[in-house]
């Protein structure tokens, strides 16, 4: 076999949020704009046949197919880091992990399925892997080995998403609030959010709700100038914003479907206020997200029909319960990934033997056909040509002989392969 037809070795070298601190990851991160050039450059390194770079805020990984004979594989990736990113290898080496063959396959499947993410089950990673794959394809850095492997990784990720509920529940306060709002209102399109008070978390919750489709944002703050600043900061061509003077809060609250309150100035919303509010809304539900400490909304408001009150502890509790549920789902997902990685590894390990057997059978068959043609010609020259029936019988005979002669060699090849895999 020539060097190019010899099977390559799968090698994954990288750092992630568990092995490297942020400053190391920052230095290694490759922006999307430079990913094509970096991938091309990595694939051009000596000894590397195929290459793909995955660079996100939590990980930088180099997935490569290298020449089997090359015994200095990780050094190639380190050289690349040194040459391309100008990072001294000593600064990175302690944080690097190196995975080969089946371990690399399993790791890739785990990454694509979001089992290796900082927030397990987050959906962005699959898109990032796909983006890296697209770039590597565009620059011609991946072919017969990495391309099918990546496609398999996407199928595994899809299977994990379909067969488990790993990504179905929210685990951050802001996303829990948005999820609860969806359970009340369905689509958040054309819904109005009222921000009472100001704070980082309330801003984040408002942004999450806007991402979900809310189109109007009202802000009310004791300091009106601050309310105006917040409204201006969140205004976009799609989002209408407005300011409600704090003294008019109770007169205007009925305009909002979702009220995020974070003043911490005592109970601004009492049951009587909310009874009037629901009446003015003709019993349409209203959702209070109370992230103030002390609470802005009297807990008794939750007992009123049409009022839903979630304070910071409630949101935290839901997030924690969701996290526990997600961890349970992750266990199922891990077993799916393990099974798929084993299957793929098995297929990959069998590939060289299968190829060798195919080549052996193909050469023997060519030889058989040539000999058969020569014999048929000789018989024709002796004026005793084979009839079609005789030709079929002889053809069958030679094929049968060939198979019987090849059988021990094929078995031997398969046996060697099994032994090698067992030894591995």
């Amino acid at each position: 076999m020539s060097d190019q037809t010899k099977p390559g070795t799968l090698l994954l070298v990288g750092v992630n949020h568990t092995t490297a601190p942020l400053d190391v990851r920052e230095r290694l991160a490759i922006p999307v704009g430079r990913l094509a050039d970096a991938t091309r450059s990595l694939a051009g390194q000596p000894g590397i046949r195929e290459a793909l770079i995955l660079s996100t805020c939590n990980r930088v990984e180099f997935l490569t197919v290298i020449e089997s004979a090359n015994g200095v594989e990780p050094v190639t990736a380190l050289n690349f880091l040194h040459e391309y990113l100008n990072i001294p290898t000593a600064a990175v080496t302690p944080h690097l992990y190196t995975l080969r063959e089946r371990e690399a396959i399993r790791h890739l499947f785990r990454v694509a399925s979001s089992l290796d993410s900082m927030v397990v089950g987050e959906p962005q990673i699959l898109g990032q892997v796909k983006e890296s794959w697209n770039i590597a394809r565009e620059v011609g850095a991946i072919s017969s080995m990495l391309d099918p492997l990546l496609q398999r990784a996407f199928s595994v990720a899809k299977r994990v998403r379909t067969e488990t509920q790993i990504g179905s529940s929210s685990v951050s306060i802001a996303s829990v609030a948005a999820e609860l709002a969806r359970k009340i209102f369905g689509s958040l399109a054309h819904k109005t959010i009222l921000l009472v008070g100001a704070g980082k978390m309330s801003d984040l919750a408002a942004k999450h709700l806007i991402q979900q489709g809310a189109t109007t944002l009202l802000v009310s703050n004791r300091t009106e100038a601050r309310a105006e600043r917040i409204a201006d900061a969140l205004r976009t061509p799609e989002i209408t914003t407005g300011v409600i003077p704090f003294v008019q809060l109770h007169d205007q609250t009925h305009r909002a479907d979702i009220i995020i309150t974070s003043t911490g100035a005592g109970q601004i919303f009492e049951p009587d206020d909310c009874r009037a509010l629901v009446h003015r809304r003709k019993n349409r539900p209203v959702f209070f997200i109370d992230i103030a400490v002390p609470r802005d909304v009297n807990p008794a408001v939750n007992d009123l029909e049409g009022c839903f009150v979630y304070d910071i502890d409630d949101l935290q509790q839901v997030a924690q319960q969701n996290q526990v549920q997600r961890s349970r789902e992750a266990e199922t997902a891990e077993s799916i990934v393990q099974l798929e990685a084993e299957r793929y590894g098995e297929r990959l390990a069998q590939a060289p033997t299968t190829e060798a057997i195919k080549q052996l059978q193909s050469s023997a068959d060519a030889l058989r056909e040539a000999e058969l043609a020569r014999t048929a010609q000789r018989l024709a020259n002796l004026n005793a040509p084979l009839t079609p029936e005789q030709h079929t019988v002889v053809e069958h005979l030679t094929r049968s002989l060939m198979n019987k002669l090849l059988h021990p060699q094929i078995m031997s090849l398969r046996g060697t392969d099994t032994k090698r895999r067992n030894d591995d």
Partner: protein
Amino acid sequence: MTLLWLRIAVLLYGVAALAVLPAALYNRPRWRHIAMPSALGAVFFHFVALAEMLNAAHHALPVDTHETLSMLGLLLGAAFLILATAYRTVSFGIFLLPVAALLTLVPAFRPGAEVLDYPLLHTGWLFLHVALLLAAYAALLISLIASLLYLVQERRLKQKRATPARTWLPPLETTDQIALKSLLFGLPCMTAGLLIGSVVALETIGPAFFADPKVLLSLAMWVVYVAMIYIRRHSGLRGRRAVYLSGFVFLIVLAVWAANQLSVVHRFKAP
């Protein structure tokens, strides 16, 4: 053949009713791929069976109890498909599909043999009368189910229990919309159905028709139905009180149905 189609429909309703449980309650979306085609097949075979049944009986309307039940089952099956397509929720199937299967079960395995003698039996007017009223009943049942689902979801949200994002319960606003829209759909059906029935009965029976208990109850049902829509629209009635109101109207509907036993007009005896 009619009975065969009907039995296939019952079987498919049963499969759909079972498949909808894991799809809705256990968050297993794959089961949806079994529930939806099964329900679609059931509605198709049910329609074919009903059309054949009515054609063979040489009348255009479901008149005996079995045929009427069967048609109500068909309407409920079709309503499930419409709701599942429009609102992307199979939750209503938990209630509608078993009811559709049960309503079809009796005519599929014990076909009725009532002999009917009624002058306008073969006209389209009576068919419209029955079909429109059945559609109104189906709409009311859906509204009741939607109100119940609203109540369950409201309780869960108030209890602040963590539930997966893909819960079997539709969002509150969706169930509220379904409840109101089905009532709004049912009102013209009920009004037109009652008007057509009244005109036909006046022509064939005369003013004595208005003394019929079923007719009186039907008129009362219409008044309460209108009142319910008015209250829901103008006060935005939701939750527990909406369930009570829908339940009350549904009880009247059951009373109207049961009044067939006391009614001369609706037992199709010749005038």
